[in-house]
């Protein structure tokens, strides 16, 4: 039906009026394009070593200079975006799906189930993420999948709690009672009536969560818990740059810039989305 398309066009029309939102969206699209086409855009192989040209400052040959092994930093940054993209895409979609499922069960199901799930959420939340990651890495060894798993496990409770609260607030609404009275099954109510009502806050949360996840991946890779050595990741670029900061600041700057851009882009976009999708804030200018 045309209503879904109408929803997107309406949202986009409102977005166009918000310069920060448009800027955020532009940054996101730019990052996505650059990352997806990294293999075409990269001037060098990110793993190609050139020991005669180590820690060079930016030149026309190497726009962002080279690192301690003479690898082209720009190419490494572009390829590093792939890691960030993969981690955030997989981790956020999986943790959102699982969090939604568990949150709905907690919010709509019987009280005992709610109690059990909330205790689980709180237990998971109470682990310090880095400690938790260290423990998991000690068990399984550093890899990108470990990073993704850690992020998923620590994010599920965040989504779960939000969905649970929203579901609980919604289930008391008359239209849910009306659906019961008109014979809708629980699955039907959850799918057709609860889900569309919580989709907007979830979308906003997911958008705001991207920088956090990207930052976490970078942090774990910085600590050597993420991707293994030659693979470029923004975190490992930062780590390399940090070690050779006295020789050249460029790798550190190059590794940090995309993190800043991702954070700005998704935060602007997320806030703009929140103002548009939250009808209570609509028309109030919605500053935070």
């Amino acid at each position: 039906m045309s209503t879904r398309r109408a929803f997107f066009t309406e949202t986009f029309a409102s977005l166009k009026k918000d310069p920060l939102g448009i800027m955020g969206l532009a940054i996101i699209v730019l990052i996505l394009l650059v990352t997806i086409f990294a293999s075409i855009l990269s001037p060098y192989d990110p793993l190609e070593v050139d020991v005669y040209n180590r820690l060079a400052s930016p030149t026309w040959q190497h726009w962002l200079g080279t690192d301690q092994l003479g690898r082209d930093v720009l190419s490494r940054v572009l390829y590093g975006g792939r890691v960030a993209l993969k981690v955030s895409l997989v981790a956020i979609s999986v943790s959102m799906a699982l969090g939604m499922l568990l949150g709905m069960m907690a919010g709509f199901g019987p009280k005992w189930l709610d109690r059990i799930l909330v205790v689980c959420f709180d237990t998971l939340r109470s682990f310090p993420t880095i400690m938790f990651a260290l423990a998991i890495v000690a068990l399984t060894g550093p890899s990108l999948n470990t990073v993704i798993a850690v992020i998923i496990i620590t994010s599920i409770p965040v989504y779960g709690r939000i969905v649970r609260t929203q579901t609980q607030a919604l289930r008391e609404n008359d239209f849910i009672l009306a659906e019961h009275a008109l014979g809708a099954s629980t699955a039907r109510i959850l799918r057709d009536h609860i889900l569309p009502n919580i989709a907007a806050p979830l979308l906003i949360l997911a958008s705001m969560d991207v920088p956090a996840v990207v930052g976490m991946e970078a942090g774990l890779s910085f600590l050597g818990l993420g991707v293994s050595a030659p693979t470029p990741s923004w975190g490992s670029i930062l780590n390399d740059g940090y070690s050779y900061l006295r020789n050249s600041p460029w790798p550190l700057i190059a590794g940090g810039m995309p993190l800043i851009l991702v954070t700005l882009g998704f935060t602007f976009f997320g806030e703009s989305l929140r103002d548009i999708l939250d009808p209570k804030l609509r028309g109030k200018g919605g500053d935070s």
Partner: protein
Amino acid sequence: MTAPILNIRNLSVSYQTKRGLLRALRNINLQIQAGRIIGIVGESGCGKSTLISAIIRLLAPNARIDGGSILFKGNDLLRLDPEAMRALRGDEISMVFQDPMTSLNPVLTIGRQMTDVQHRNNHSKAEKLSRAARMLERVGIADAAEQLNRYPHHFSGGMRQRVAIAMALMTKPGLLIADEPTTALDATLEVQIINRLRQLQGDVGCAILFISHHLGVIAELCDEVVVMYAGEVVESGTTRDVFRNPDHPYTRKLLECDPARIAEATRNLPVIGGTLPDLVDLPGGCVFRPRCDRSIDICRLERPALRGGNHCAACHVAAQ
């Protein structure tokens, strides 16, 4: 007389509360013939909502059915398994709620919600939409096909209540329960909705259980009226009989308090003195006795039974 479509016999429901067992409904008897409109009146807290929740079996978790039966087309609803009961809801028994501002899902279009209630039919989506549009036209919404693409917040209260009525009647139920459907609307809309309901009732042929504390609406719409007080039926009969010759003192007082019936201008509207009895700790004898100005000795001792034929009342004084 044919078998009634809904026959409630000796229904008792209570709520588990911290103070004890709150006996919300006690020995309710109620019959609805197919195609008739029955009104239920009574002040807040008299058990109207508990009664309809019991009929559609959506009682609060702390409610307990103490006894009785609710026969719908011969089947006892209280003994149906949950799946069978769910199959009845929205198909054979539909409901319209009090507040149209909150009874529609704010994020789904009207069309989506109206096709949603037809989920049991195997029609194509286009067919469901056109049926929805036809139903909207019947409840008096102009340009119905266009309106299907709109969201509830595009509609006014009266329009939304029409949509809710259209949704409830979509499946041509045998019984429509209307829980104060006009209370949240203003007076002119109320009349329109009432007229529309009456007309639709004639078309669809469903029985309507109409809850209201607006006596004028009941008098206008209903064939029969049931007066409830503190969880009991105190009087029932045809609307004409009950309103012209009320037997129970509560009905009489209720009618006296109806602002529409007060002839001369007054600053002080009449009230019924006293409050509802405590349903956790019920007084012996007649439940209305503490507020009744005609009580006699026996009222203190014995609970009056519902007496009389088609027009009956539960009152010792009236029985004499």
